[in-house]
């Protein structure tokens, strides 16, 4: 499992974001094209990381709904860069020790004829621990 | 023999209007920096004669830092512009003579930059401490 304190620290380190700069204006969420798809919204990412409440984010599908369009980065008046937190949390999930996001058994069902072999190999490298 | 922890001697020339006030602000905000730093108040950084810098080295200082208002913000309009040129030339000369260039520094610290003052001093003391005692200028005229 994730160590609660460490994971927050790691997310902040990986992202390079200073969540304390946030003045909670919500312009990131106001700009977000995926807002309605997301359970947690960009401003909540910032707030939750700042308050060390990262666990729900790790388990949320929201991290995959982010389009990484950088609208939040562009518009944020404080230069907080929320998308970098989303990306850092995605990485945190990927890097999680012992978490197999891709099992060999799952593969046949997902295979599409057009999928290159190399993609499968690299997917295993990335998502199977 | 046990050598006690080496403490460098640092002379900081601070202009009255910006950097000295910045140092005061560091105090007001209780921002720590090493006690090795001793401040001399001058009206403007342009009052600092290169010979004062050399005098400090000659009397055993290990590092000398000159702090003034940011260029463009000098209380006397242009004093720090002269400082910038004079010290650039002096430091370059010292470096040319083989004196470690890290022993000298010019930093622009405004009256509002207490945190910068403390951070600068911490960094400068650390840098100078790493160099050790200022031997070279002392030995410049002595035969090996």
């Amino acid at each position, binding site marked *: 499992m994730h160590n609660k304190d460490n994971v927050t620290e790691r997310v902040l380190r990986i992202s390079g974001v200073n969540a304390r700069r946030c003045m909670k204006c919500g312009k990131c969420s106001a700009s977000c094209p995926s807002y309605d798809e997301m359970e947690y919204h960009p401003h909540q990412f910032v707030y939750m990381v700042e308050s060390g409440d990262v666990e729900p984010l790790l388990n949320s599908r929201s991290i995959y709904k982010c389009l990484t369009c950088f609208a939040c980065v562009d518009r944020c008046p404080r230069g907080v860069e929320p998308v970098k937190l989303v990306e850092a949390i995605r990485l945190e999930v990927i890097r999680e020790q012992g978490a197999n996001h891709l099992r060999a058994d799952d593969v046949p069902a997902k295979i599409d004829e057009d999928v290159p072999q190399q993609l499968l190999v690299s997917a295993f490298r990335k998502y199977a621990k | 023999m046990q050598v006690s922890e080496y403490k460098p001697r640092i002379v900081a020339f601070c202009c009255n209007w910006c950097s000295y006030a910045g140092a005061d602000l560091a105090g007001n905000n209780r921002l720590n920096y090493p006690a090795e730093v001793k401040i001399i108040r001058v009206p403007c950084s342009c009052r600092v004669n290169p010979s004062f810098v050399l005098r400090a080295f*000659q009397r055993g200082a290990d590092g000398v830092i000159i702090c003034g208002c940011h*260029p463009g913000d000098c209380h006397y309009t242009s004093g720090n512009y002269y400082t910038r*040129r004079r010290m650039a030339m002096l430091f370059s*000369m010292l470096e040319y003579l*083989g004196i470690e260039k890290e022993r*000298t520094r010019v930093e622009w610290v405004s009256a509002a930059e207490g945190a910068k003052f403390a951070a600068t001093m911490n960094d400068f003391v650390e840098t100078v401490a790493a160099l050790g005692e200022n031997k070279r200028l002392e*030995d*410049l*005229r*002595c035969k090996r």
Partner: protein
Amino acid sequence: MQAISSRTLVDIAAKKLASGEVSAVLGWKKGLFNYDVTPAVFTDEKDLAENFVYTDFCAANLSKYLVNETKKPEYRADNRKILVFLKPCDTYSFNQLLTEHRIHRNRVYVVAVPCNGMIDLTGAPYEKCVNCKSKKAVVYDELVGENGEVIDSNRFDEVERIEAMSAEERFAFWQNELSRCIRCNACRNVCPACTCEKCVFDNPASGLENKAISDSFEEKMFHIIRAFHVAGRCTDCGECSRVCPQHIPLHLLNRKLIKDMNEAYGEYQAGAVEGSRAPLVNYSENDIEPAEAVGKGGNNA
């Protein structure tokens, strides 16, 4: 060999003396041997004819002598002039002294003399002549022969060589050089930029003077402070190195500053233009920071 003979110059000076247009002539006087030529003031034509020389040993820059000569009562009393012979490089010093208001221009009659380079008593050319920066006389009342051109010299090569050394090597180099200094003050006394009414090193009030103790401030810092005092005012006439009895290459200190100032603040030749503003009494709002200026040349860049 100089292209102009002593005779030519004596004739010019003698005529001026005879006409009363000048009351004295500052030139070079021969000594016991052909190499010991000394600067001298001639006031009568006979002395001039017998003792004035212009040879390969006339390296001395005569401009500095004018500071005190023109202060003498005979020049003050009425508007009488002194005639001086200046080689091209000496004219830069003269111009710099005019810039600093150290000489009354109207008390001097300048005769510019071409120079083919000067040699020391061993017959070797002086460094300042090997790396001659200009054959062009920049100020004169009368020009003997043809005026030359500013030379694209290699005078900064040696500075660059030192800059390229490691800090340890540089230190070793300068320690080796400066440790020979005997503080005879010859460099200061000959320097045409060092014309202060009272030198800071002789002035107890300056905080720099300290003669008794060899380990003193003055001793260690003398050359650095001196280089700094003449920074922007030094025309690179090379007299300091020429007269140093210990053969310390003092010009390399001044040239380092000239090179640095040229690179950081734009080309500036002290004495080239009368009244010009030296880099250290000038500024630009976007000058480089001291940290950037240090070690720009050489391997620390």
